[in-house]
């Protein structure tokens, strides 16, 4: 049989071979080669996700345990609702939760979830209500003789423990117990993959959108009426009628719904409701308040939710949810 590959000259062959070997040698860390994840799922369903990994090695080292981090919304309680197994040419086994407080290799005293958050933050999501859940393989693997180890991590997660419809970018990261998130002349010993926005539907709670910038956000994202909350109006998200003229302040016009079926409205343009621009010309306005005091509830009343608009100094121009006439809604809850 005739070969279609013609490379003239022995030297060229050798040269190509050398370059290939050099490339292989240069790569020695764990690599996530792909993630198979559905684009949507429903709350409460068990979703399979497969993370394909490849671990090229240089020389001899280890044995090290594989470390895997999974970035998910805190409300999903992924540590309780997820199982992960792995399989590959070297065998199969389970990925186990790393006990909290286990100090990470090269993590500067941090444990693995904290080290992951410090290194990769929240994977480009916009609400800091996400967590890295850290797992470790039940068996260690050696780095030997340039063998490449490839395999799959098979995740099964019961979605949306908090019952909220969610838009979120899920994140995946791998490394090993011998290196952590480091690089050296041999290569990079970790790999991170953040997927496109994943949509969770069919829930009973509010939509939590980690992916898209919101006109208003409340920090902490989960709070009760006895927390101190910071409400931010971001005029850069869309061009609202409020921002035309670049005002230095906007005002909050809000109605609280209480546990005893009453509504309390605070809609005035005074210092109490003033939202101050975070920095000049930032078009972002902020107010921080204690809801109990802001709405003047009695000791036995609890505020369950608030509906609100952002207004100008006259109160005549109002902006609501998605730049419409409908109010923004925030429900006070912890999960």
């Amino acid at each position, binding site marked *: 049989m005739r070969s279609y590959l013609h490379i003239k000259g022995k030297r060229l062959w050798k040269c190509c071979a050398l370059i290939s070997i050099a490339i292989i040698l240069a790569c020695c860390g764990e690599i996530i080669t792909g993630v198979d994840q559905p684009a949507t799922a429903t709350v409460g369903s068990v979703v399979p996700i497969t993370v394909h990994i490849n671990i090229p090695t240089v020389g001899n080292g280890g044995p090290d345990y594989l470390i895997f981090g999974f970035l998910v919304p805190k409300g999903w309680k992924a540590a309780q609702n997820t199982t992960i197994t792995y399989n590959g040419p070297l065998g199969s086994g389970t990925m186990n939760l790393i006990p909290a407080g286990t100090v990470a290799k090269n993590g500067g005293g941090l444990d693995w979830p904290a080290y992951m958050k410090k290194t990769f933050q929240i994977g480009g999501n916009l609400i800091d209500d996400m967590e890295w859940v850290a797992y470790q393989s039940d068996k260690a693997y050696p780095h030997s003789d340039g063998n490449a180890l490839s395999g799959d991590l098979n995740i099964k997660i019961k979605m949306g423990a908090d019952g909220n419809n969610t838009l979120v970018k899920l994140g995946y990261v791998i490394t090993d117990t011998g290196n952590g998130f480091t690089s050296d002349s041999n290569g990079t010993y970790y790999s991170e993959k953040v997927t496109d926005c994943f949509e969770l539907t069919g829930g009973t709670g509010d939509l939590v959108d980690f992916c898209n910038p919101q006109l208003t956000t409340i*920090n*902490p994202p*989960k709070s009760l009426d006895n*927390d*101190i909350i910071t409400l931010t109006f971001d005029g850069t998200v869309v061009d609202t009628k409020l921002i035309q003229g670049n005002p230095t302040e906007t005002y909050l016009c809000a109605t609280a719904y209480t546990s005893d079926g009453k509504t309390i409205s605070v809609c005035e343009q005074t210092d109490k409701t003033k939202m101050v621009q975070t920095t000049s010309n930032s078009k972002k306005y902020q107010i*921080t*308040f*204690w809801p*109990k005091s802001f709405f003047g509830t009695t000791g036995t009343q609890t505020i369950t939710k608030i509906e609100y608009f952002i207004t100008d100094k006259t109160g005549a121009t109002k902006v609501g949810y998605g730049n419409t006439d409908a109010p923004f809604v925030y429900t006070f809850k*912890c999960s």
Partner: protein
Amino acid sequence: MKKNNIFYQINLLLIAVATILMASCKTEKPLSVAEPVKDITGSWQVIRATRNGTDLTSIIDFTKFRVNFKAGAYNLENKLPFLVDADGQYSLDDPKYPFKITFTATGGTPVATPFTYPIVNGKRQLTITFSPGCPNNSYVYVLQKTN
């Protein structure tokens, strides 16, 4: 002969010096210093406050909020989120080495929290960590006596 005399005198002098040096040594008896009882009686105000690590001091008006401790009782003025939302009794776990303070609002259940009591710039400070709303939201108030 004269030389011998000088040696004799030097020897005498050395013995005298050695005797004086030895006599000057005596066992020192350390004075026992009693650890003072930590007294937090007085009116305290918030000088620094954080929520989940974010500084709130300049964006919430803490200037009027007071926690007053007196004879085992406390009361709150110009309320803000705190461990308790009503006046009542307080106690420390140890009067000399307190690590925990317990507030019991009248008619309520006791709420305990770890606290520190350092001296900063010559003034006592009281640092209290608590979660008045969702358990995941942690607040730290640093209080200082108003007078």
